[in-house]
């Protein structure tokens, strides 16, 4: 069951300050409404994982590890590989996070990141089948939130795509006897897109890109729009107890496309691809 969350009380002085600044088109950290915080990406940080990356988006820090195993394909897609995305809001990431099974926020986060990757066909799952109907590569994308300062979706998705582009899987050949055999060779995961989500928060009548935690706590709602490399929209998620007018949605989409371009360049240059 989903329950109205307890809101972290924001000092009235702070929220007033944020609103006043927004009227002049500025934010508390000096950014423009449509500016991202500095992004740093590092790949291959966890040697034991088949792929990994950390992304820092301002103070938000996310680590994604990719494990690739073999297993049965899903019954409704017997001829494709399997992709599964999970997210953990670690207790070390924020004072309010408690250890326990994934709550609705980590589930929503994982599913939105999954949608971006899956609907853009970023990972070519058709190339990940080994024995049709019987054996496939299973790609586990595990999102580990290390520090929460807002906009976990964008940071997680960027880390995920950087990690996937960085992932090497063992080559498995199917012998004449029909038996799969693992070789000593490795090959990169078949990647064919670079989906970039852009999250925009709404405070009053202003739309802000890449909200920090304080802005998220004040926002009435957020919208994440994921853009593929050829400019299509492959995922949208409105989140939060507020609303967006249709005009605001149109404006958000246009901003998202613009920013996605910029950010994709960053990813491709640091993560290779």
């Amino acid at each position: 069951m989903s329950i109205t969350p307890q809101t972290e009380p924001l000092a009235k002085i702070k929220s007033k300050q944020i609103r006043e600044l927004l009227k002049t088109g500025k934010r508390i950290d000096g950014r423009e409404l449509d500016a991202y915080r500095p992004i740093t990406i590092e790949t291959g940080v966890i040697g034991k994982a088949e792929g990994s990356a950390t992304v820092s988006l301002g103070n938000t820090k996310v680590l994604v590890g990719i494990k690739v195993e073999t297993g049965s394909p899903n019954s409704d897609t017997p001829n494709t590989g399997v992709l599964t995305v999970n997210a953990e809001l670690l207790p070390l990431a924020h004072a309010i996070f408690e250890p326990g099974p994934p709550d609705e926020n980590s589930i929503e986060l994982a599913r939105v990141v999954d949608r971006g990757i899956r609907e853009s066909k970023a990972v070519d799952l058709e190339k990940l089948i080994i024995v049709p109907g019987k054996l496939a590569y299973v790609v586990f994308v595990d999102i580990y939130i290390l520090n929460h300062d807002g906009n976990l979706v964008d940071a997680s998705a960027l880390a995920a795509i950087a990690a996937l582009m960085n992932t090497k899987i063992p080559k498995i050949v199917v012998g004449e006897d029909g038996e799969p055999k693992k070789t000593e060779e490795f090959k990169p995961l078949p990647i064919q897109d670079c989906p970039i989500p852009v999250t925009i928060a709404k405070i009053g009548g202003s739309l802000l890109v890449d909200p920090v935690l304080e802005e998220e706590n004040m926002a009435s709602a957020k919208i994440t729009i994921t853009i593929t490399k050829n400019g299509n929209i492959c995922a949208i998620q409105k989140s939060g107890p507020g609303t967006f007018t249709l005009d605001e949605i149109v404006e958000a989409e246009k901003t998202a496309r613009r920013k996605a371009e910029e950010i994709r360049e960053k990813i491709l240059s640091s993560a290779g691809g």
Partner: protein
Amino acid sequence: METVKRKLIDENGLRVDGRRPDELRPIKMKVGLLANADGSAYIEQGKSKIIVAVYGPREVHPKHIGLPDRAIIRCRYHMAPFSTTERKSPAPSRREIELSKIIREALEPVIFSEYYPRSMIDIFIEVLQSDGGTRCAGITAASLALADAGIPLKDLVAACAVGKVDGQLVVDLNDEEDKEGEADMPLAYIPAFNAASLLQMDGQLTEEEFFKALEMGKKACLKIYEMQKQALKERYLKIKESVEAGEENQEA
């Protein structure tokens, strides 16, 4: 061997169930059918069947989850094990958990929750049969159940999904169109705000298609909104008619 995919739009531009692209499935709405709940509603949209009960505002338990200045909303979207072709486990799936959250967020904006501090309003959505569009139909019915419970609202929330099948934008996808199509965009719309309280999309749409889909979605939601208003009034109008008919008979 490759199976040939069924064409979802035929030569006449009609869909697998004979509908035009902008046509809704047949919709039936009923209000106030559960005696114990404070408010209730039932909706059939094509083959999807959903029932919603609202309890509240009522005492909040446990006390510490209550808020001092408003009611909290608890929302559960759940699918019956027999609602899908393959039996679904009764345990809440990740999808149901995500949908419970976004459905709550779709309804919260219209509820005057500040009227009932330190209390809770429960919304229970049960999908009895699933054939696509259940989160939207659930929101549509939940609005009716909230109104039926007498909870003050700014407006009703009407919801409908727009999708793309065989390259064509269509409204109110059924299950086959959702599974085999190229995009699915559920939308919940509040006419009083001219705003969306739920918007999701998975698949692929160009910017142009997206903007067109928003317009189609708004139009579809407005049609559903008219049906919601009618369903709320119907209950009372029916009683009025039978009483007035009874009086006429007496006079005659």
